[in-house]
């Protein structure tokens, strides 16, 4: 078991999250308060909420692990993951905010239903796809929380998951987006501050930035190149990987729905640059920590466990070596928990919103009173936590593959209907349905074929030059264009109401 200092530090963090939930619950008067924080979020709360939503458990453990394993060719995620926030704000946010404030959108599905004149078909397809993808992503987050708690407290997996589920579910259920947003503020500050303090110490312990690069080059010159000459992380793959991260994350339901919660569109002026700078620094430092791990392992300073994902332990072992104070390790656990929980709570609330608002209120029970919709939201948040907790305790083998596909499926499913809807007046309801359905199905199909290295019709999916999701994305674009050209156009009145056209904002 962990020592008392560790328990106290993590206990304080958990209590702070619950206190935020209790405070936020007093602000919840109706469904709008619960799902979009009464459209009242200020600049810094919004920016830190966006960073917290995008920063997942992968941000700490996986990013440094990938850097340790493959070196500089993986550096592009340090640019395009933080840039996804700016892409979301600029290309989706400005228009969605402007239309949402008059139309009263609660979710992005409200926009899709309005723009494509499809109150049932596209709304339900989009909500169901969003719920499935978010649930899959959520299981991965709970697994990451459990890994941290097990490592620190040395407790069984089921107990770690129950503790994590109770804390996240409690503050999310009672406080809605107010709680998620303010918890996100605290979590993002912990993440940014913690990484900026700890990562430089690990890099310094390894001999400094230049020494780390020189050692990597001596081990394998391709580790310091911007891309590999062939295969994974060759130039074509890097380009498709960048599009995947930037656009796929930007249109993920739990990220894009944050757009509807701000008080004033003027916040979009500097939010993209500030979010990119703040989260970019964190991401670069984490990657450099992974590089430093190469030196620390080579020189015998740290020893990684003999497991398949040994690289994911680099940052943990690096901190133990650079800062040999147990209390600091507990602080690191809080940093990882903050990164994971800031995504987990937003995912749970998004699932609650998509079911209670898009499926229950808008399709099943249009005359349901507001307090009933609010209650359904809370019930679904709790149920989503329970379902994912059970799946995370004993994850089926197929689930690991689905989590790996997560962002790629989001890109292929949501990007084209959203971008075409906002910018192309020729995009039709049938085009959006075909694009979303074919994007979803082809992303799942190509993901499986790529993961299992299958050859079909002469195509070896183990050796495709682009990320698998890029092919599904292209199919989604073709489906949108071809079907839209063959079907009835959307009414001009609706296109004007939804500000559809080749512009970002009318000055």
């Amino acid at each position, binding site marked *: 078991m962990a020592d008392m200092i560790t328990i106290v530090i993590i206990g304080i963090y958990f209590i702070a999250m619950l206190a935020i939930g209790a405070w936020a619950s007093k602000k919840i008067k109706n469904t709008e308060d619960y799902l979009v924080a009464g459209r009242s979020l200020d600049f810094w709360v919004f920016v830190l909420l966006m960073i917290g939503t995008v920063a997942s458990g992968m941000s700490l453990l996986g990013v440094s692990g990938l850097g340790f394993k493959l070196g*500089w060719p993986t*550096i*592009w995620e340090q*640019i395009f993951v933080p*840039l996804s926030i*700016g892409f979301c704000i*600029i290309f989706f946010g*400005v228009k969605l905010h*402007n239309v949402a*404030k008059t139309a009263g959108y609660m979710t992005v599905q409200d926009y899709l239903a309005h723009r494509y004149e499809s109150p049932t078909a596209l709304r339900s397809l989009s909500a169901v796809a969003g719920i499935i993808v978010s649930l899959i992503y959520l299981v991965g987050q709970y697994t990451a929380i459990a890994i941290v708690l097990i490592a620190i407290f040395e407790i069984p997996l089921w107990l770690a998951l129950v503790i994590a589920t109770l804390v996240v579910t409690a503050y999310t259920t009672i406080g809605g987006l107010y709680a998620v947003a303010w918890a996100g503020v605290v979590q993002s500050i912990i993440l940014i501050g913690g990484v900026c303090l700890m990562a430089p110490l690990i890099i310094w312990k390894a001999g400094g*930035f*230049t*020494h*780390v*690069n*020189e050692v990597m*080059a001596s081990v394998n010159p391709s580790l*310091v*190149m*911007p*891309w590999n000459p062939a295969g994974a992380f060759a130039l074509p793959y890097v380009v498709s990987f960048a599009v995947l991260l930037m656009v796929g994350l930007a249109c993920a339901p739990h990220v894009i729905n944050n757009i509807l919660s701000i008080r*004033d*569109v*003027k916040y*979009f*002026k*500097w939010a*993209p*640059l500030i979010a*990119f*700078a703040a989260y*970019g620094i964190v991401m670069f430092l984490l990657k450099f920590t992974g590089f430093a791990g190469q030196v620390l392992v080579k020189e015998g300073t740290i020893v990684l466990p003999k497991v398949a994902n040994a690289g994911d332990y680099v940052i943990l072992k690096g901190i133990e070596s650079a800062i040999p104070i147990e209390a600091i390790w507990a602080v690191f656990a809080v940093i990882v928990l903050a990164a994971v929980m800031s995504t987990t709570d937003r995912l749970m609330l998004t699932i609650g919103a998509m079911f209670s608002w898009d499926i229950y209120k808008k399709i099943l029970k249009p005359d349901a009173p507001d307090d009933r919709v609010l209650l359904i939201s809370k019930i679904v948040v709790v149920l989503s936590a329970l379902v994912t907790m059970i799946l995370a305790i004993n994850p089926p083998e197929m689930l690991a593959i689905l989590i790996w596909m997560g962002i790629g499926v989001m890109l292929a499913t949501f990007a084209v209907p959203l971008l075409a809807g906002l910018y192309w007046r020729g995009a039709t309801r049938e085009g959006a349905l075909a694009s979303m359905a074919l994007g979803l199905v082809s992303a799942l199909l190509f993901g499986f074929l790529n993961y299992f290295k299958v050859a079909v019709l002469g195509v070896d999916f183990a050796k495709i030059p682009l990320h698998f999701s890029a092919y599904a994305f292209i199919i989604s674009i073709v489906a949108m264009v071809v079907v839209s050209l063959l079907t009835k156009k959307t009414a001009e009145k609706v296109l004007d109401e939804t500000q559809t056209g080749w512009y970002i*904002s009318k*000055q």
Partner: protein
Amino acid sequence: MFGLPDITIAAVGGVVVIVIIALLYWGLTFQGHD
């Protein structure tokens, strides 16, 4: 520089600079208000 090949500095540094300039341009020109 920094123990890295020139192409790595140019490629990564170039993209970072382009992104920052683009986001600065956006911030300086966006006139949105409610």
